[in-house]
């Protein structure tokens, strides 16, 4: 049960003279909900980009179950079972809500040559289409977006766009979900709904989840374990309680105490 899903060993990423992620090591176990916090520019999103293959690490190793993630392309990593959402929502805005979720299941087709079976409408291709549609509608029903299925994604209110982005990530059938500031721009009511939602999908889909978030209520409320980053370095790790009283964390957020 307590199998390690993702393990990072001394992962480093430099942009010119700036070390955005500096020898980061960490892990997440099956079913865990882990928070990743730190001041702006601490390297949290860069770490997500490294895990999902958007960037290539300069040093270190990333293991997902027994697969080495280094050198894999983003689409290959998604197929292994890592899905993400983005800090600034990146939906396919001119497509419908249903299509957004359906497109995320395209990765189940492995060969470009299966394109011909779709052009010639071979029964297996039609069956694939039907299955994807049924599966997507079920997923939308679970997250409560089914009534918006035929709306354009850009027509949804902000909070629901965030939810749709999570639903779209779920459609790739991930084992690990990376959420980048899911509560950004939400009001307290929406935020508390989102917290319940994250917990629900974790249990229902058997996920491990890493959340980047600035809203401490969210992080402290749902995460079992927290990593704190500052200037690319891991400065603290522990339970919410431990983190709250950690002097290094307080220093990173509030600055050093000035002695007179």
């Amino acid at each position, binding site marked *: 049960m307590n199998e390690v899903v993702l393990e990072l060993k001394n992962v480093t990423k430099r942009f010119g003279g700036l070390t955005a992620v500096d020898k980061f090591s960490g892990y997440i176990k099956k079913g865990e909900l882990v928070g990743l916090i730190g001041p702006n520019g601490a390297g949290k999103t860069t770490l997500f980009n490294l895990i*999902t293959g*958007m960037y290539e690490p300069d040093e270190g190793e990333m293991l997902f179950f027994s697969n080495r993630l280094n050198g894999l*392309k*983003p*689409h290959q990593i*998604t*197929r292994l079972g890592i*899905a*993400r959402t*983005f800090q600034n929502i*990146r*939906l*396919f*805005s*001119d*497509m419908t809500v249903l*299509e957004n979720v*359906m*497109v*995320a*299941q*395209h*990765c189940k*087709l492995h060969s*470009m040559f299966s*394109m011909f079976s*779709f*052009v*010639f*409408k071979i029964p297996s*291709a039609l069956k*694939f*289409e039907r299955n*994807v549609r049924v599966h997507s509608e079920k997923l939308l029903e679970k997250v409560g977006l089914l009534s918006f299925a*035929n*709306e354009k994604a850009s027509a949804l209110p902000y909070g629901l766009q965030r939810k749709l982005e999570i639903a*779209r990530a779920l459609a*790739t059938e991930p084992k690990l979900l990376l959420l980048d500031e899911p509560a950004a721009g939400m009001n307290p009511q929406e935020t508390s709904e989102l917290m319940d939602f994250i917990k629900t999908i974790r249990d229902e889909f058997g996920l491990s989840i890493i959340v980047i978030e600035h809203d401490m209520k969210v992080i402290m409320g749902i995460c079992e374990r927290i990593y704190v980053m500052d200037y690319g370095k891991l400065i603290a790790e522990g339970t919410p309680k431990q983190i709250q009283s950690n002097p290094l964390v307080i220093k990173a957020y509030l600055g050093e105490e000035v002695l007179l």
Partner: protein
Amino acid sequence: MGMVKRLSVKTKTVLTILFVVLMALLIAIADRKASDYLVLILNLIAINIVFAVSLNLINGITGIFSLGHAGFIAIGAYTSVLLTLPIEQKEMSYLIKPLIYPFNRIELPFLPAVLIAGLVSAGFGYLVAAPSLRLIGDYLAIATLGLGETIRVIANNAWSITNGALGLKGIPPYTNLYWSWGWALITVVTVASLVNSSYGRALKAIREDSIAAKAMGINVFSHQVMSFVVGSFFAGVGGALWAHLITTIDPKSFTFTKTFEILIMVVLGGLGSISGSIIGAAIYTVGLEFLRVLESPFKVWFINYPGVPGMRMVVLSVLLIVLMLFWQRGIMGRNELSWDLVASSFSKFKRGGKR
């Protein structure tokens, strides 16, 4: 959107079959009764549909701004002509340098020549796509523009293959209404089934946000290459049909103005809409012919109009500018003409415009 009336799948299938049969009947009648001029225009409409729909797959659906379509049309045209031109005609044409083997021994029927033309064009598309798709946006547009021109320049100088600037004459006029509209139908059906499948959604996702598409497990590069190759195939097929319609080709027929002509049809109809491309191709082809009156002298009441050569292009450009000012996303936008849409606008019409 909520206004759109939904018809059952069965009704739609019946309507589609009826529509295709009706079109086939009209074409059969036109083939027998219509004047040569009208037949030429109808052929050109069909061939322009092939060009516009194939370019729309690349530019509108996948969002790759390619300006190299004329190059692929040239490849298709030359390939098919080299295969179908009678051997004695080849001996007469190649005056500067003789045609290389095996083309000087080959004389194929039309269908295999068109298919090979499409495949050769698709093959070139594949070779070209791999390096140029590493670029994005404006850079890709410039690269593909240069590529189209390169193909034309090669055609101008490869005397032993293309007969250089002299071009090729006496091409058998194989293209008739059945061939051109048959291929137009194949193009539309193929592209539409691709676009409405899982692959089409992936292509649209790439157009909307390529980073998010990657994160959803889509291999962006190979999908873009696929779209480019399919588009090139039909550009080549269209080129073959065109060459066998006008029966004479030379490198000047494939300048970048050819690409822009097709781009105008696509943008006019709506970038990303297949039915839009069909409408755009038809309007552009017919419009250009209607405006021909401006190039010959005529008299309105007491004003004598002298007839200015090239005037129709000026007027057409102005018309297009006006059209784009009022219809910025083209006639169809990204929507498709469907039976649902037809039915709902028809019922709206019946209720006297009341909602």
